[in-house]
């Protein structure tokens, strides 16, 4: 067998691809993981790393809870410290309308198994004294936390190599051919790679990747803004958000505070996240300072943009591709970082021929008829 022939090839070395590759290799397959850049330099290395259930799509709560538990025990199964920390989490309401939304959303998520309960302002401030005293109500969840996302690639890279995965960084895939023996993966500036099975794990670039195989799906690209502050005195221990989901706040052990909430910047899959929209930046920090007033004391250090993918029905796309043998896709998972260790493993189980513990998310529902060439 040639050096560039594998049982499985995973394209896209974000956290999704890395997890699938890891479990395929550990399951005994000769596996390669291919990225055009370095491992986990896109969404998976620049995201907020929040393990929160307050922001997770209700339908994905069971997956997120499993994923969160895996992150917190990553030392045991990944063999690396990626800064995973357990904390409690709050979602706040400042107006009557927000309070209504808070209650409704907490109920929907509790129904899916998230241990979220409504607490009074006094209870909330007893646990997290930094919260703005003008809140009307809060939702509390003991199961929250965060991972230091920028360490993801370092942790996975070591684990992947140890599991025997052949990691190919620095050459983009340009197309995929189908042959009797499986798939031929053509790369830019490097030799093609052959594999019996392929897994597409290209984040916001999945639309392009799927089109190589004649599969047409629209993938929306969100341009999420994150803001980090300088180190400051400890001002909060919990993860804090608000009812409408437009804020996520946490302070790391080093004293820096990360401010997110899905506010949008400008960019696209080709050029990446190019520029923040100054008004969105200011709006996001106004909201953050309203939730935790002490944040006014620090300075804003850096603002960046990351690319998150979403399907038309906003549910994940994880499973075998219709009409092809042994071709799979994984991506577009909301709060995807949280659930990646679990969902990636579920797909690996399926590829290894075992029945996954929870259902996958059939991509066939999203396929469009091939567009006629104009």
């Amino acid at each position, binding site marked *: 067998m040639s050096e560039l022939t594998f049982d499985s090839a995973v394209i896209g070395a974000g956290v999704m691809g890395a997890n699938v590759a890891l479990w395929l290799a550990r399951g005994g397959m000769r596996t390669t993981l291919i990225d055009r850049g370095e491992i986990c330099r896109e969404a998976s290395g620049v995201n907020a790393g929040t393990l929160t259930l307050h922001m997770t799509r209700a339908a994905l709560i069971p997956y997120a809870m499993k994923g969160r538990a895996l992150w917190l025990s990553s030392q045991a199964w990944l063999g690396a410290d990626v800064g995973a920390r357990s904390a409690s989490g709050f979602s706040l309401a400042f107006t009557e309308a927000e309070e209504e939304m808070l209650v409704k959303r907490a109920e929907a998520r509790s129904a899916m198994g998230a241990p979220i309960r409504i607490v009074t302002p006094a209870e909330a401030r007893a646990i997290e004294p930094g919260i703005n005293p003008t809140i009307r109500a809060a939702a509390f969840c003991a199961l929250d936390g965060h991972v230091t996302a920028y360490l993801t690639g370092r942790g996975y890279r070591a684990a992947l190599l140890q599991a025997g995965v052949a990691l190919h960084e620095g050459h983009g895939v340009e197309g995929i051919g189908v042959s009797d023996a499986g798939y031929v993966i053509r790369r830019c500036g490097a030799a093609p790679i052959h594999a019996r099975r392929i897994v597409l794990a290209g984040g916001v670039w999945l639309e392009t990747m799927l089109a190589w195989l004649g599969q047409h799906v629209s993938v929306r690209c969100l341009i999420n803004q994150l803001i980090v502050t300088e180190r400051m005195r400890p001002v909060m221990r919990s993860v804090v958000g608000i009812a409408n989901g437009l804020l996520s706040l946490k302070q790391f052990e080093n004293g820096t505070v990360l401010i997110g909430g899905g506010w949008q910047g400008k960019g696209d899959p080709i050029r990446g996240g190019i520029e923040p929209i100054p008004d969105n930046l200011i709006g996001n*920090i106004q909201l953050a300072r309203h939730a935790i007033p002490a944040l006014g004391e620090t300075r804003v250090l850096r603002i960046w943009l990351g690319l998150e993918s979403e399907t038309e029905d906003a549910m994940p796309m994880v499973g075998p591709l219709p009409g092809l043998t042994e071709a799979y896709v994984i991506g577009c998972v909301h709060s995807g970082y949280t659930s990646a260790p679990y969902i990636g493993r579920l797909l690996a189980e399926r590829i290894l021929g075992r029945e996954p513990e929870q259902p996958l998310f059939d991509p066939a529902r999203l396929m469009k008829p091939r567009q006629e060439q104009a």
Partner: protein
Amino acid sequence: MSAADLIIVGGGPAGVEAALEAEAHGLSVILMDEAPQAGGQVYRAPPRAFSGAIQRQADPIGVRLRDRLSASRVQQFFDHTVWSVSPGFRVDALGPKGPVSYEARAVLAASGAQERVVPFPGWTRPEIVGLAGATIMLKSQGILPGRLTLVAGQGPLLLIVAIGILKAGGRVAAIVDLASRAEWLADWPALASRPDLAVRGLAWRAKLARAGVPILYRHAIRQVEKVGARRVSVTVGPVAANGMPLAAPLRGFEVDAVAVGNGLTASTDITRLLRAEHHFEPLRGGWAPKLDAYYRSSVSGLYVAGDGAGIAGAAAAACDGRLAGLCIAHDLGTVAEAEFRRAAAPLRRDAARARRFGTAMAKLMALRQGQVQAIPPETVLCRCEDITRAELTRAVGDGARSLNQLKAWTRCGMGPCQGRICGDVVGAVLVVEGGTREDVGQFTGRTPFRPLPLDQLAGDLAYADLKLPPPAPL
């Protein structure tokens, strides 16, 4: 939001000359700088509150620059820190009255340079200042780094600082210069292109000789250790032509301050943010934006002049600035082709001559490979985050190839300076570990260009008045 034809970021010689030239050709111009007055790093004005004696010491070139600017119709925004430039263009700044933003058809980045220091054990001690920082202290406030100072590093700032210290009544223990005497002389033809500056250089050397200041050529600092309250011992040793330390003989100096610098690097915050193309020019400070003969970057409407386009010195910055101002007026349609050609020709000649001198000086400031190889493993490279060379080596061992991956894996460059201080040296270290400058790349440019007080940016706003996007889906 008010608008102009052109916004210039940076009020040093490049920015001011460009502003005056563009305005003279009918453009409406906004000039912004975080400093309280024009002059940039080289002609930094003494604070207005300071006495007449200090004011009189200000460089007459700077005084003239400020006078001409006040007599012009250029709209000036000093004490304004520019923190973002968006395509199209919108420039956001934080001024004394809070956040402001302006729009323009074109932007000129004239944001100058920052100093590079090649780390050695002890370089982050409080007794140590940068050469460039020392010039600012000396000229804007007449403050000495210490009573007895060792001046070390490379390039023309060595002489400027040593002379400045003597003039201000301080003492210089020695000048420790990476270059050989022959290297200074090698560029004599280029120096002769600016006889005034060449003569000044000779006069300075004579003054240093009279004051008995030893100059150790081909030497560099090995380490600095504390020996008492505000007193340090500096070990100095010889180096090879590529900067690599040679075994002996070592010499020791006990001083209360060390001024050290290893050249300047271009400030590329704006061009990196807007994803303009850059190239690596080792003899002009390293990474610099690619420009055509009209000072246009690869981003339409974005121009660059002065040290921010690659180090060439103050005289070249002024000439380039003027020419850039003319080119922008030409591109925006206020100067006819024939008039442009007539006006540009003499400016191009001046600029080329000034650049010859500046480039010779910049060459002395270029980083040498042996300097980088010699940085000991336990030495801190990123002072904001306390990251040592050994930690970088480990990250490279774990598979980091680019500067950005290295940053993610170690936090090197994640602190308040955002890699502006360490970026060039860390890039050079990565090259020593394997790869080219192009493979290693640059830190991704992001906003804000300077840390911004969160309270000032947020302003005062009632919760009900916050403009929120629609709620996230359930």
